[in-house]
């Protein structure tokens, strides 16, 4: 079939504002949205710019807004977004961060927030000779959160983040959850000091956009709520 692919283009060296450009692209139902972009870049217009790498939803490069929803381009198929021949697919960069070029956004701030939550295991007790023991049940508590690929689909879908760009946002706080609730971690005091702040947890109004956007189907809001409870009990 043939599809109309509408892309929000922006070239910092030429444009003053983003504009839409359309391409006619041949497609199969089982093609990924990324395949459409690659087709354009390779065969029609080499200036089209986007990030990509693994092409199967694990590296987190190609989160973008497709038909208005934050998705990984490589992980959504043509058959899931259009009905048939002649339909239109739109691509735009993730909303809420500065655009560098076309579909590429500036992630500086996103990773600044990641670094802010001390995203590493803090444990000052000398480790045992062997691994630290962790029961499968305790592991289950954090497993879902460890699936995060830091693609940014969640944080860039969060109205709280749109409203207040300083808000840590779901991705960073999910990382905080992943380490704070890890039974091997002893750093919850320090980490909670960051997330239990003006820019932290309390700006999550359980809107659930993050859960809907997450390509890894992580139950983000649930884990953030657990972190909120942890913060409250830590203060009691």
């Amino acid at each position, binding site marked *: 079939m043939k599809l109309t692919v509408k892309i929000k283009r922006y070239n910092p060296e030429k444009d003053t504002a983003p504009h839409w450009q359309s391409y006619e692209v041949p497609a199969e139902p089982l093609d990924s949205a990324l395949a459409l972009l690659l087709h354009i870049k390779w065969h029609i217009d080499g200036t089209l710019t986007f990030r990509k790498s693994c092409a199967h939803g694990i590296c987190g490069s190609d989160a973008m807004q497709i038909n208005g929803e934050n998705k990984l381009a490589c992980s959504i198929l043509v058959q899931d977004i259009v009905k048939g021949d002649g339909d239109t697919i739109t691509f735009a960069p993730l909303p809420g961060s500065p655009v560098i070029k076309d579909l590429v956004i500036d992630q500086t*701030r996103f990773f600044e927030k990641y670094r802010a*939550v001390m995203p590493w295991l803090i444990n000052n007790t000398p480790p045992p000779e062997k691994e630290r023991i962790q029961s499968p049940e305790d592991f289950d508590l954090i497993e879902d959160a460890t699936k995060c690929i830091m693609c940014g689909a969640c944080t860039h879908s969060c109205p709280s983040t749109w409203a*207040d760009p300083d*808000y840590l946002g779901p991705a960073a706080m999910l990382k905080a959850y992943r380490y704070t609730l890890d039974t091997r971690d002893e750093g919850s005091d320090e980490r909670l000091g960051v997330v239990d702040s*003006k*820019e932290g947890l309390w700006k999550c*109004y359980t809107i659930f956009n993050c859960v809907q956007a997450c390509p890894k189907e992580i139950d983000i809001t649930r884990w953030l709520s657990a972190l909120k409870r942890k913060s409250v009990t830590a203060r009691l």
Partner: protein
Amino acid sequence: MNYGKSARSTNAQNWFLHRITGTFLIFLLIVHLWVQHYDHQTATIAVQTVTAEQFEAGTLPTYPDEAVSAVRAQTGNATMEVTPYDVVMQRLSDPVYAVLWKGFNILFLLFALHHGFYGLNNVLSDYIRNDMARAITKVLTWTLALVLLIVGLYSVITAGWNYSP
């Protein structure tokens, strides 16, 4: 941005209170609505609804006989016209009954104010991002809450004192 370098906010407590007040407000609201609009026993229900035009023209709703006669009995005026104000005041001037109702209303007032103003503050701080401006809004909103609290407490507590229709 210096995340977490600011002192811990009071948000954890406020957030927690927000959950508690939220939960309680559900029950308080149900009681409130029920008492105001559905309960015959407390005799506050109007039998007839009054449209805006009728209200403008000075029409009062008719009350069940129990309510009307209770007000009349209390005032000793067997023919007086009974207004909603009279019905409520009658209820609040009863010394035993009033303690319960005033307690209820004060709780309701506190919870609603906290819940609403914490929420309002959140929304405002989403859009007002300058630290100074935030501090000012925070002071202003909570001051407003305090004023409303005082007005509210004053009206609830004094309601029914020396009531004579």
